[in-house]
């Protein structure tokens, strides 16, 4: 049977026009609608960002001078949001606004049109960028599908508390994109010795997804009773240097708990501070320092030895737990605040209840800008 295009099956490219001049909006809307485009409009910056996130237009025409949030603010919000970062933006500028154009290009605009318009020129520019956008979206959709397959494989690799109950841990992991940069593993070094590895791979792209299974294999090979924790990390570092793509590295924490001797050893590889809450309620921010993983040969991984007692709890996390939450812009400025949250956790809580409560208190309703990983392990 011959297939016909019903109105539901015709794909109409969507353009979001952002301008606070009603006459200009009306003119552009009418002309572009008559050419078959689906048109959305917004008259201020905040409305523009909200509509772009919800509707994911193929292209945005954006005026710089806007109330509430100016065009640069809109661009910043869209370019740092993973769902809108790839939408092309054409700036609407006035005559002689050279600095605005330069700044706009630096922030990721693809083109600009100058008021007053020649409609034929506007149409030609829009057509080119919509075509490019359409092709880019198809590529992104194909890549997304592949990334989802990787995420499924990645998830299958993550060990669950049920698989290794003696390690007494619980964990929360939310990866922002399909193949995330945060990763953890728990290794049974012996029946009473467990290693906890929390890492953040710089950048979020397909190669981050490939790195995590490799690190899991490296931990298994190099973390045994025969090696000190620092020796294990040196060996992991050596292999990663030869393996990681240019500019990739990890920050990580490696905590080894020996429940037979009641000792723990911590190595921080430029990672946010591990926090220890003693059974008596006192909280310690562990200050271990070391180099990042996977990029330099000449590294120092200092071991911090910690006496532990039954009931002590370690909280290990990645920077997303602190950053972008209203606590602090950079994790270095927010560790004390997180430690204070941990100090106030009810003593009757289970480790899982601790993790749930920290996330509820710190991340209630914010839009995620990074992966989140929080692990709690009890001695």
């Amino acid at each position, binding site marked *: 049977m011959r297939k016909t295009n019903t109105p539901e099956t015709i794909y109409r490219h969507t353009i979001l026009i952002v301008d606070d001049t009603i006459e200009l909006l009306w003119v552009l809307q009418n002309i572009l609608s008559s050419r078959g485009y689906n048109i959305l409009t917004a008259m201020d910056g905040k409305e523009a960002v909200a509509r772009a996130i919800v509707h994911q237009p193929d292209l945005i025409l954006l005026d710089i001078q806007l109330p509430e949030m100016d065009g640069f603010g809109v661009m*910043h919000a869209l*370019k*740092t949001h993973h769902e809108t*970062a790839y939408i092309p933006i054409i700036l609407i500028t006035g005559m002689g606004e050279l600095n605005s154009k330069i700044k706009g*290009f*630096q*922030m*990721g605009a693809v083109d600009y049109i100058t008021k007053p318009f020649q409609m034929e020129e506007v149409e030609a520019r829009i057509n080119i960028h919509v075509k490019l956008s359409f092709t880019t979206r198809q590529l992104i959709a194909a890549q997304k599908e592949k990334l989802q397959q990787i995420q499924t494989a990645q998830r299958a690799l993550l060990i669950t508390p049920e698989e290794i109950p003696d390690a007494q841990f619980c964990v929360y992991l939310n990866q922002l994109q399909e193949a995330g940069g945060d990763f953890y593993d728990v290794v049974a070094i012996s029946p009473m010795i467990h290693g906890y590895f929390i890492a*953040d791979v*710089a*950048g*979020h792209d397909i190669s981050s997804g490939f790195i995590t299974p490799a690190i899991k294999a490296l931990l298994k090979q190099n973390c045994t009773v025969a090696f000190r924790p620092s020796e294990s990390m040196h060996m992991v570092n050596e292999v990663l240097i030869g393996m990681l793509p*240019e*500019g*990739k*590295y990890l*920050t990580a924490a490696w905590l080894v708990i020996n429940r037979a001797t009641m000792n723990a050893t911590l190595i921080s590889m*430029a990672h946010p501070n591990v926090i220890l809450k003693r059974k008596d309620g006192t909280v310690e921010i562990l200050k271990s*320092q*070391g*180099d*990042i993983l996977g*990029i*330099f040969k000449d590294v*120092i991984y200092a071991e911090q030895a910690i006496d532990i007692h039954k009931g002590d709890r370690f909280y290990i996390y990645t920077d997303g737990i602190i950053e972008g939450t209203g606590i602090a*812009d*950079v994790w*270095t*400025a927010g560790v004390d605040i997180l430690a204070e949250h941990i100090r106030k956790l009810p003593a009757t809580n289970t480790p899982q209840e601790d993790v749930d409560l920290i996330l509820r208190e710190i991340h209630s309703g914010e839009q995620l800008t990074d992966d989140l990983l929080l692990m709690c392990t009890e001695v």
Partner: protein
Amino acid sequence: MFETHSQGNEATMELSGEMVAGLIGDLRDQIQALFPNHNRIILNFAKVEIIDSTMVGLLISSQNLFKARGGRLILKDVSEDVIRMLRIMRLDRHFEIVPRG
């Protein structure tokens, strides 16, 4: 494109805004394009307040590649917050950093 000026074997690139994934564009290529004709590249951070892990990775790889060619990469007018972060990551050992004055 970030504004760049050259004087003899030295190039200075004026960075601005948030140097984070999604906003740094083709900065890596722009820096590497300066390698052939210069032995000193100054990245001016006077108008930069925030950098993220992607930018740190870019700086490290640029530094490693340029060093291998005998060049020196200098981070100039770096804010106190960014220096603190580089110090905690122990990266201050690998870069020549000039603090904001």
